[in-house]
């Protein structure tokens, strides 16, 4: 009997492997095909070293992708059904496999000190964080810059979303894969259709945003070709709330107020829920005012910006309105939308902003943008739900005992504020806080000051990308690994990664018991 159970378990485990391998293979294939874009860029600009780097990387990724598909070929006959656990594990595992494969061009470029640094930069790109360890950024090829920004742009929409949109037609368990990547909004009844709508929205903004930045770039004195690439890269980083930029000085490179204003508009739009974009596109403009996430974002942004502006004016750092807007409001909004663009130096945060300014930034980074957007953090939706639940509980306490009232919140449609929703929102916020605390503690362990450790921890946990100076190639390897893990967990919102860990532990347990 026990032997029969063991055989059944092993057979299930094997079929799980086949399903995971098959779909992960397609996601790898999608990313491999994405490398055609930097390859084309290299050809057009005649950058031959990067061209070869990407040919090598694309070939390895294609071989790997096809090998995984061949391994799980039985899944194709639909004999095996995709379950929830598969969706979560595929999302979690594909991000890890892609991190390794997408690091190859970085490593071959010679601009990173180690493979770990390359993995750090790729995970930072995928998770739309924006921290980087790439060396001598001002001298890297346009091709590698194209790849860095493409990764963050695609990562913002989701790697699984990409595969669902273009590769996996008529897929049975598509919704489970989609949810595995921490996106759970249905814009149209069909999940593949939803993935395509997400891409359509992003591509339309890509054209408008790049055009606006291109023209502004020419206006501020960049050469037309260079203005185009800067415009494209900054759009990709802003829309995906990524925060990468083609130069070390980030947004400071441009010395331009109009360029900053356009980038603010793009990253605020990027931090909004795709459902909200779709509703507004469908003509439902009232949603902008009624949506709980918008309300939450407006309130928290206003409060955080006001407190930071007042405090920094009090300290005598930024005293006039234009300066306060450009240096304080810009950076607070960049933190709140989890973009990570900066137009002050990391050292300035540490030395000039003071503990209160840093605290405002930490709160902004942890709250983050909207659910089902390109942003990270707790998400405005969850903060809104928990705040509403708190108000509802207080109201219940002071209301007459016989009074029964159903509390609601508005997110695309009216939703009942039930205990399950509040519990889920609170749990995810709790997970973020625990991750933030552990990451801060590790920074302290390595000797960094509390304020700096907390700032950097909030930045990686919330997938922001602002740095106070800890993230450098010389920081301890263990801290780099923890930051990679924090970015990964924060972006996938824990559940998928927990499912992966649980299955690995379960598999190991089975293996030990069978022996």
């Amino acid at each position, binding site marked *: 009997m026990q032997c029969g159970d063991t055989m059944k378990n092993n057979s299930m485990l094997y079929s799980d492997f086949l399903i995971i391998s098959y779909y992960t293979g397609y996601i790898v294939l999608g990313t491999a095909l994405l490398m055609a874009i930097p390859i084309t860029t290299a050809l057009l600009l005649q950058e031959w070293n990067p061209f070869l780097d990407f040919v*090598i990387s694309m070939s390895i990724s294609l071989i790997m992708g096809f090998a995984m598909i061949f391994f799980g070929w039985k899944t194709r006959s639909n004999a095996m059904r995709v379950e929830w656990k598969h969706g979560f594990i595929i999302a979690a595992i594909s991000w890890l496999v892609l991190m390794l494969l997408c690091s190859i061009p970085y490593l071959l470029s010679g601009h990173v000190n180690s493979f770990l640094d390359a993995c750090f930069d790729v995970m930072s790109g995928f998770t739309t964080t924006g921290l980087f360890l790439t060396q001598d950024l001002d001298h890297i090829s346009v091709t590698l810059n194209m790849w860095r920004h493409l990764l963050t742009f695609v990562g913002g929409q989701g790697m699984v979303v990409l595969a669902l949109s273009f590769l996996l037609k008529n897929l049975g368990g598509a919704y489970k894969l989609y949810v595995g990547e921490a996106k759970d909004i249905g814009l149209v009844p069909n999940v593949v259709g939803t993935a395509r709508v997400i891409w359509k929205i992003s591509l339309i903004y890509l054209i408008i945003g790049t055009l606006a930045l291109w023209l502004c770039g020419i206006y501020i004195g960049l050469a037309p070709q260079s203005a185009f690439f800067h415009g494209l890269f900054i759009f990709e980083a802003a829309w995906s709330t990524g925060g990468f930029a083609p130069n070390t000085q980030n947004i400071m490179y441009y*010395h331009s107020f109009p360029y900053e204003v356009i980038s603010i508009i793009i990253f605020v739009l990027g931090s909004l829920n795709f459902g909200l974009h779709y509703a507004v596109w469908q003509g439902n403009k009232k949603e902008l005012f009624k949506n709980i996430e918008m309300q939450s974002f407006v309130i928290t942004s206003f409060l955080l910006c006001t407190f930071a502006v007042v405090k920094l004016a009090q300290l005598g750092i930024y005293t006039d309105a234009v300066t306060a807007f450009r240096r304080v409001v810009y950076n607070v909004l960049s933190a709140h939308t989890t973009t990570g663009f900066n137009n002050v130096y990391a050292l300035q945060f540490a030395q000039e902003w003071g503990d209160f300014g840093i605290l405002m930034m930490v709160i902004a980074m942890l709250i983050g943008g909207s659910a089902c957007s390109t942003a990270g953090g707790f998400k405005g939706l969850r903060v809104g739900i928990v705040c509403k639940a708190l108000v509802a509980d207080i109201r219940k306490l002071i209301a007459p005992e016989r009074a029964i009232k159903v509390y609601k919140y508005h997110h695309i449609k009216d939703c009942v504020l039930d205990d399950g929703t509040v519990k889920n929102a609170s749990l995810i916020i709790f997970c973020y806080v625990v991750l933030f605390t552990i990451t801060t503690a590790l920074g302290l362990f390595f000797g960094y000051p509390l304020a700096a450790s907390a700032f950097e921890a909030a930045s990686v946990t919330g997938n922001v990308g602002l740095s106070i100076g800890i993230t450098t190639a010389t920081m301890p390897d263990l801290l780099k690994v923890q930051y990679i893990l924090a970015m990964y967990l924060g972006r996938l919102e824990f559940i998928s990664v927990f499912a992966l860990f649980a299955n690995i532990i379960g598999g190991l347990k089975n293996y030990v018991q069978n022996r």
Partner: protein
Amino acid sequence: MYKTVKTLLIMLLLSFSLSAQVCAAAAIEINTLIEKSQAFDGQTVTVEGEAIGETMLRGEYAWINISDNTNAIGVWLKASDAQKIASFGDYRHKGDTVKITGIFSRNCTEHGGDVDIHSHSLEIIERGYNKPEEITQVKIQAALVLSFFAFLTAYIYWRRIH
């Protein structure tokens, strides 16, 4: 005796004036400027670094960015000065190494709170140059072999689905 004292005094004065000149012209690292921005705010400073990116002309003036490997900073200078720079650092070029003397601001009121230097003078220390791409044979061979296997697996996949 009087002559000796006079000569000594002149030598002393000369040595002081020379050392003062050296101090004024000694380049400060950009990161040090930012680290000690409060102390340097409004002071005339000299920095030396590679011109990176490109010139951004703004009327009679222009922005350039320079990097000295410790950090990078924006320099606001006359367009005519900016035009002296022939090469800017990027993937294909090593930029001109320039020495800039100007007023450092940690919160420039003219430029919306920018940390910048308003240049008085620009000196080209070393001309930049084109950086040729060095492609190794191993890389070419690896690319060829791996592409072959990638096409092979793609062909097998295509055969399987048809």
